[in-house]
C-alpha cells in the first residue's frame, strides 16, 4: 500500500481512539460526579486545550519527528487503553478520581495534540501543503465521527467501558507498531528498540484485556442494557452499578435493587407507613438497606434519635457512603451521627437481644436463594418480635404480589404465623412493576392514614388506596416458610419461572 495512504489511516485511527478515550472519560465523569452537562463540557474543554498544548509542544521536537510520532502513539495507546480500568480503580475515592480523570484526559489530549503536527511534518515533503492539510484534517474528522458513532452503538453495549478502552488501546498500539515499518526509512536510531516498545505496549494491553474480567465480565457487559460503571465482587455478592441516560441502577447478584429514577416510590412506601404507625418513633432498626436509601427516609423524622443499620456486606455500605452518586442519592445518610452501621448477617445478629426498637424496616433482597430465604422464615420473624417494642411497627418489602403472588402471600402468612398482625399493601414502582410491602405490629392496629408532607410519591389518598388488592393479587394459601422447608425460595423460583 502507498505509504501516504497508510499514514492517513493512521490519522484516522488516532482520531477515533482519541475521541473514544474522551468519551470514556466523559461518561465516567458525568456518572460519578453527576451533572453530565458540566462534566462533558469540562472534559471536552480540558481535552481540547490539551490538544493545543500538544500542538504547541510539537515545535520542541527537533530530531526525528517520525520516531517521536511512533513513541507518542504508543504512549497514547497505553494511557488511553488503561484509562477506563484506571478510573474504575479510583472510583471509590472522589478526590483521587478527579485527579486521575483530569490527569488522563489532559495527558491523552497532549499526546494526541502532538501527533498531527508531527505527522504533517513527516508528510510535508511528500505533497503540497494545501493537499496535506485538507487530507489530514479530513481523516481526523472522519475518525472522530466514526469513534463517536461506534462508541455508544457497538462497543459499550458489547464490550463494556473497560474493554472498549482497552480494545481501542490495542488498535492504537497496532497502528503505531505498523508505523515502524511504514516510516522505517525516516526513523533515526534503533528501530528494533522502538518495535520492542510496541510489543511491550501490546502485551500490556492484552494482559489488561484478559484481566478485564476482574472489573466486569463480558457476559455482564452484554447483559445490562446500560453501561456498567461500577462492579465489584465482595465476599458476599456481586455489586454492579449501571448508568443510563437519566439515572443509574444497582444490582446485586444480577437482581435489580433500585433505579435512581423511581427508588423514592419504593423507599417512601417501605418506610413511612411503619414510621407513621408509631407515635414519636425514636429507635429504628434497618435490616438490609445497605444502600442508605431507607435510612434517608427515616431521617426525615426529627423524633428519631438512633438508627441501627444491619447489612451483610461492608462493600455495600462503604459504596453507599463513599460512592458519590449513591451518597448524593441517599443524602449521605450513612454519615449521619444518628446512624450506626453494623456489617453482619441479620440472622445471626438478631439473636442478641438489646434495647427494643420502635420501628424496624426490613429491606432484604428478594428470596432467590437459601441464604436470603432464611431471613424470611418464621424463626427469623420470631426473633424479630423480641427486638420490637410493644407498640412498635415493622415495615417490610415482600416482593411483587403480581409477579410473585404466592411468594408475597407466603411472606405475609409466615409473619402472621410468627404472631404478627399485618396490613399488606402494594404500590407501582415502574422499574420493578407492582411492588408489595406490609406494615406489622404485635397486636391489632389500624393502618396509618397520614404521611409526612413533601414526599415525592406518597400522600394520604395514595396511602388510603394502597391497602386494597386488585383481584389478581388477592391472598392465596401458602405454607409457612421455615428454615427446614425454605418454602418461600421454592415459591419464588416457581413464580418467576412461570413468568419466563
Amino acid at each position, binding site marked *: 500500500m502507498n505509504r501516504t495512504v497508510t499514514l492517513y489511516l493512521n490519522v484516522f485511527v488516532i482520531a477515533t481512539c482519541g475521541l473514544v478515550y474522551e468519551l470514556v472519560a466523559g461518561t465516567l465523569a458525568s456518572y460519578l460526579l453527576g451533572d453530565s452537562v458540566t462534566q462533558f463540557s469540562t472534559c471536552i474543554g480540558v481535552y481540547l486545550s490539551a490538544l493545543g498544548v500538544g500542538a504547541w509542544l510539537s515545535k520542541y521536537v527537533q530530531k526525528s519527528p517520525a520516531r517521536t510520532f511512533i513513541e507518542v502513539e504508543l504512549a497514547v495507546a497505553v494511557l488511553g487503553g488503561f484509562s477506563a480500568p484506571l478510573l474504575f480503580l479510583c472510583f471509590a475515592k472522589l478526590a483521587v478520581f478527579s485527579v486521575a480523570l483530569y490527569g488522563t484526559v489532559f495527558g491523552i489530549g497532549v499526546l494526541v495534540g502532538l501527533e498531527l503536527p508531527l505527522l504533517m511534518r513527516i508528510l510535508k515533503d511528500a505533497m503540497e501543503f494545501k493537499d496535506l492539510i485538507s487530507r489530514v484534517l479530513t481523516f481526523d474528522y472522519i475518525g472522530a465521527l466514526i469513534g463517536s458513532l461506534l462508541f455508544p452503538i457497538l462497543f459499550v453495549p458489547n464490550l463494556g467501558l473497560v474493554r472498549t478502552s482497552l480494545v481501542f488501546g490495542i488498535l492504537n498500539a497496532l497502528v503505531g507498531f505498523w508505523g515502524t515499518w511504514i516510516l522505517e526509512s525516516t526513523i533515526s536510531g534503533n528501530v528494533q528498540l522502538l518495535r520492542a516498545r510496541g510489543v511491550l505496549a501490546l502485551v500490556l494491553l492484552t494482559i489488561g484485556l484478559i484481566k478485564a474480567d476482574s472489573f466486569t465480565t463480558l457476559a455482564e457487559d452484554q447483559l445490562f442494557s446500560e453501561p456498567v460503571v461500577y462492579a465489584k465482587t465482595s*465476599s*458476599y455478592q456481586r455489586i454492579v452499578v449501571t448508568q443510563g441516560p437519566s439515572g443509574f441502577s444497582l444490582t446485586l447478584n444480577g437482581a435489580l435493587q433500585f433505579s435512581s429514577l423511581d427508588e423514592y416510590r419504593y423507599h417512601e412506601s417501605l418506610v413511612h407507613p411503619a414510621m407513621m404507625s408509631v407515635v414519636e418513633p425514636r429507635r429504628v432498626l434497618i435490616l438490609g438497606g445497605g444502600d442508605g436509601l431507607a435510612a434517608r427516609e427515616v431521617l426525615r423524622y426529627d423524633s428519631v434519635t438512633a438508627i441501627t443499620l444491619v447489612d*451483610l456486606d461492608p462493600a455495600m455500605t462503604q459504596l453507599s457512603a463513599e460512592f458519590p452518586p449513591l451518597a448524593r442519592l441517599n443524602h449521605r445518610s450513612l454519615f449521619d451521627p444518628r446512624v450506626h452501621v453494623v456489617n453482619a*448477617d441479620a*440472622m*445471626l445478629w438478631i439473636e442478641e437481644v438489646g434495647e427494643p426498637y420502635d420501628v424496624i424496616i426490613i429491606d432484604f433482597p428478594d428470596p432467590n*436463594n*437459601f*441464604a436470603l430465604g*432464611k431471613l424470611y*422464615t*418464621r*424463626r427469623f420473624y*420470631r426473633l424479630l418480635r423480641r427486638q420490637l417494642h410493644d407498640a412498635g411497627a415493622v415495615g417490610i418489602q415482600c416482593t411483587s404480589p403480581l409477579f410473585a403472588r404466592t411468594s408475597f402471600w407466603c411472606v405475609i402468612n409466615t409473619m402472621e404465623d410468627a404472631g404478627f398482625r399485618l396490613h399488606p399493601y402494594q404500590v407501582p414502582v415502574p422499574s420493578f412493576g407492582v411492588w408489595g410491602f406490609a406494615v406489622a405490629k404485635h397486636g391489632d392496629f389500624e393502618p396509618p392514614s397520614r404521611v409526612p408532607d413533601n414526599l415525592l410519591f406518597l400522600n394520604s389518598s395514595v396511602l388510603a388506596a394502597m391497602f386494597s388488592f386488585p383481584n389478581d393479587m388477592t391472598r392465596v394459601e401458602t405454607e409457612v416458610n*421455615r*428454615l*427446614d*422447608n*425454605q418454602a418461600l425460595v421454592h415459591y419464588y423460583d416457581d413464580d418467576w419461572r412461570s413468568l419466563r
Partner: protein
Amino acid sequence: MNQLNRRELLASFLAAPVALNGCARREPLPPLPPGEIVGASAAVGHRLRQSAALELADDQWQRARVVIIGGGIAGLAAARTLLRAGVDDFVLLELEDAIGGTSRSGTGDVVSYPWGAHYVPAPTRENLPLVELFDELDVFEGVDERGDPVVAEPFRCRFPQERLFYKGRWYDGLYLWAGASADDLRQWQAFQREIDAWVSWRDGRGRRAFAIPMASGSDDPEVTRLDQITMAEWMDERHFSSDRLRWLVDYSCRDDYGLRLSETSAWAGLFYFASRRDVPGGDSRPFITWPEGNGRIVSHLYRQVKSQCRLGWAVLDVNPGANGIEVIASRYTDSTLAGWRADKVIFAAPQFLTRFMIRPYCETVPAHVSEFQYSAWAVANVTLTTPPQSRDAPLAWDNVLYESPSLGYVSATHQRGMDYGTSVLTYYYPLCAADPVTERQRLLDTDRDAWADVVLTDLEVAHPELRQTALRLDVMRWGHAMIRPTPGFVWGGARQAASRPFRGIHFAHADLSGIALFEEAFFRGMTAAEQVVAELQV
C-alpha cells in the same frame, strides 16, 4: 511423603479414579493445613491391656455407692438417672479429658462441630424419657395432631437437608433420581412398600417390628429371623438389583453402622428405614440437630452431673468382691492411681473392654464378649475460609459423594445459619473395606497428614478449591467407633448375655442394643441406673 507412597495411600482409601486424579496433578500441592489427631484413647487403651497387678495404699481408697465407668451418652444418662432418684454419692470416671464419648464435639472460632454423632430423629410421644430430655433443651414447641411433639425450627435440620454428588454434579436428596430408569423407579417403590409393610407390622402384643429404643420393638421370630441373613441377601431375594437403590441402602448401612450392605444384618438394615417412619407412606421423623451435633445433648447432661464426673481417669481394674466392688483408675496426665469401693458399678464403656477391666473376665473371658466387634471410623473437621463452592444443588447439611467410600461431609455452619465466611465441615469415613481388625490397624497406621491428604483429595473432586481454602484440619481416629450388627449378632444371644448384670456390675452402652444410636445409649444408661437404684433400695 514421596509420590509412590502417596499414590498407595490414596489408592487404599479412595476410589481408583479419584486417587489417580489426586496423584496426576503436576504442580506442587499447596502445603497441608495445620491440624492434629484429637483424643487420647488409643494410647490409654494400650496401657489398659498391659496393666499389671495394681497395689493401692489404704489412703488411695475412697467410698462411693456407685461408680459409673465411661462418660459417653450411656454413662451420662445413668448419672442423670441416679441424681433424679436421689442417689448423689457416685462418681463417673471418663478416660478422655473431654466428656461425651462418641457424641463429643469440638469448639472452633466460629462454631462448634461434632466429632461423632450429629443428629437424632425426633422421638415420638412413646419415648417419654427422651421427650422429657429434649424438653429441657427447649427442642419442642407443642404437639402435632397425633400428639407427637413438634420440633422447633432452630433444631430441625435446616433445608436443604441432603444432596448427592455424582459424576461432577450435585443433585438434591440422597436417592439419585436423575437418570433413573423405569425399572429403577419401580424397584424404589417396591422397596418403599417393603419398608411400609414393616412400618405397619405389629406382633401379638401390639409391638412394632422396629421401634426406638430397639428393646421396645418385637422379638417375634418373624422379625428376628431377619437377623440371620445379610441385607444384601435380603435385597437379592426380592430382586432389588437397581444400582442406585443398592447404593442408597449400602450408604445407609455404612452411615449408621460402618458396615457394607453385604455385612449388615437384614434386621439392622431394615431397622434403619422402618424405625423412623411413623406410618406407612409417611415421611421419616424430622432430624433434630445442632451445629455441634449431639455434643449439645452431651453438654446439657454434663451440666447436670458435672460435680460427680472425673475426666482423664481411665478405669484399669474392676474387682467384684465380698464387700462390694473395687474399682481402680489411673489419671492419664500423671498416672496417679486411685481406688473406689462401691456397692454398684455401671459399666458404660464398650463391652469389648470388659475382658481387660473386669478381673474375673480377665481370667476367663465369657464367650459373649468376643462377639462384640466394632467398626473403625475416621472423622475430620475441616475449617475453611469460605463455604465450599458449588454449582447445581446448593450446599446442604449432609453432602454425600456417590462415588466415594467416605460418607462426604456435614456442615456445622449450615445448621448454625452461617452462609458466609469461615465454615466448618465434618467429614466421615467408615473403614469397611476389610475385617475390622485390619481396618483398625489401617486407621491407626495413617497419621494426621496422610488423613488430611485423603480427606482433601476426596473432597477436591467436588470442590476443587478446597486445598486453597482449608485453614485447619483435625482428625479423630475412632478405633472402636460403632458396634457391628452383622448377621446373628443382634438376636444371637451375645447381646442379651452381656446385658445381664454381673456381681453388682450393671452394663450400659449402646453396643448392648447392637446398633450405635443415641437413643439406645440413653436408654441403656437409664435402665441400668434404674435397676441399680432399685437394688440399692432393697
